[in-house]
């Protein structure tokens, strides 16, 4: 015999499960915010050269003639470690509306530069199978991704001026 109470238990159970699930994700995100690599000990000069020789051209090619200044509100970084922290986050962590930057050429160059010049930095493992599955989506460069890359360009320029 089921009463009205019993009819309401299923949505409540679902809500309970989802809330636990989202709670864990929330906590993980908070942890992610706190536990990031410290780029203080990196060789900034060599990273800057790598940017000038490889990463800069790849970023410009991605933008395909669109100026980064057309996207308002650049991101500020105080010093070279702060700039690298933000560069790493934008490059390798997906955001709402743009999830495929990690597989671009500039991202591969960034990963290589950070891995080589930052002691203890393990680098990002880019999943090739996922790349194949998401190939169709990646071929379409969304405006959201261009905005992210515009942020990256400004952060890299700031980094090169102060390093």
């Amino acid at each position, binding site marked *: 015999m089921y*009463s009205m*109470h*019993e009819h*309401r*238990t299923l949505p*409540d*159970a679902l*809500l*309970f499960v*989802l*809330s*636990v699930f*989202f*709670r864990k*994700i*929330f906590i993980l*995100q*908070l942890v*992610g*915010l706190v536990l990031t690599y410290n780029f203080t000990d990196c060789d900034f000069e060599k990273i800057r050269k790598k*940017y*000038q020789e490889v990463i*800069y051209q790849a970023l410009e090619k991605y933008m395909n003639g669109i*100026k*980064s*200044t*057309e996207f*308002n*509100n*650049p*991101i*500020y970084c105080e010093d070279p470690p702060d700039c690298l922290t*933000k560069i790493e*986050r*934008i490059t390798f*962590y997906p*955001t*709402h509306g743009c999830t495929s930057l990690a597989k671009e050429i500039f991202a591969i160059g960034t990963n290589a530069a950070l891995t080589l010049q930052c002691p203890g930095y393990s680098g990002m493992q880019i999943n090739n199978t996922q790349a194949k599955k998401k190939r169709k989506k990646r071929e379409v460069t969304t405006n959201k991704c261009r*905005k*992210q890359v515009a942020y990256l360009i*400004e952060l890299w*320029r*700031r980094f*090169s*001026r*102060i390093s």
Partner: protein
Amino acid sequence: MHHFKVYDPVDFSAFLMSKHYLSLNMFIFGLQGGSVGHEGTDLLLTLSCLSASMGTVFLPWASAALFLLVVVSILGDWALEGALQLQIINFNFEVVQVTWNASKFSGTNLTFLYKLSSDKTSSQCSNYILQQSHTAGCLLEAKKDEILCFSIKNETHLLLTKCQWISAYLKPSSPKDLNFQWHQEAITVTCSDLPYKRLLYEIQYKSMFDTEWQSKEGETCNVTTDGLDAEKCYFFRARVKTMESSYGPDTYPSDWSEVTHQQRGELRDSCQEKKLFPKFILISGTVALLTVFLLLLSLWKVWRVKKVLMPIVPDPKFTFPGLFESHQGNFQEWIKDTQNVAHLNKMEGAEQECVLEEVLVVHLVKNEAETPIMMTTPLCPQTEEEEASRDPSQFPCRPLQGGEVVSLGGFTFVMSDNSYIML
């Protein structure tokens, strides 16, 4: 049988948490992907979070409408920026100049509000640039590499909002006090480096004979150029540019430094252009005169040769006016008409006596007191008959030498070119 209360406190809080976690989660994404505690917050992302969270409470169409409103406002910003013809120049990280086209909003004074990264609050411009009594720009101090956020508004509406690094519009100051060091065929140009990095110092040079400048760049103001001739005089100038990979494409090169002149390792006021000029004129003038002289000489030589080969035949019509026009070349008629002289008739077969003729030869004399010398010398007969009939005992005759024979009153005169008869 277990019963779950619908409004169990734990379940209810979980319910609330799940509903609002969506917006919180997206806000965290915004923190990760956008700025951190800075005015550079992603408006779209934040409002998308807001609209997403609203979508869980209000109707979906309301959130969509809000999102579209944001997109339209951002697009409007871009269009307005073009209409205002906004220009930003960062003068050597000392002063930032922001100017706009005031004529688009004639009659109104636009207000400029700004905030730098290091400022806590926004400020209104305290140093406006005026054009026809209306605000057309703002000068503000900005001594560090930071982000400038500003807004321009009229009396009623916010027209434009923009945030950019001021380094994106840098114009470095011009290099000063250039130093030159010669070493054989190379010269090193040095000057003081500017206090910020990633610049290119460009040195241009040319000799007196070059039409275009040669260029050499370096990342510091220590640029060496080789392959120069120290004996030649060279012009030098310098300027500073930014690296596009560090500052972007919208910067401005500095103004050129003053042009300096170098020769034999010494600084010169000029490259001897003034001394060269008169010498060039002198040589050119001499060559021109010689050329003209030779041309005239050759022409004169040609004229003399021509005169020898083809002498000019004098036209008698000018010497004897009316001879051809009135008398058809009949000289005797002309003489008769003009000189009133009787004809000297030819007598055929008649003996011609050797007549003692007084030949009045009048010499051209200088003084009027001198009297003409009269010589009475008979003329020699001109024909063989005359000679045969001549008396040899008579005075030796004077041969008839050229000239015309004029008979006057029974007297016959032989006229030369220089003689004349006075009656």
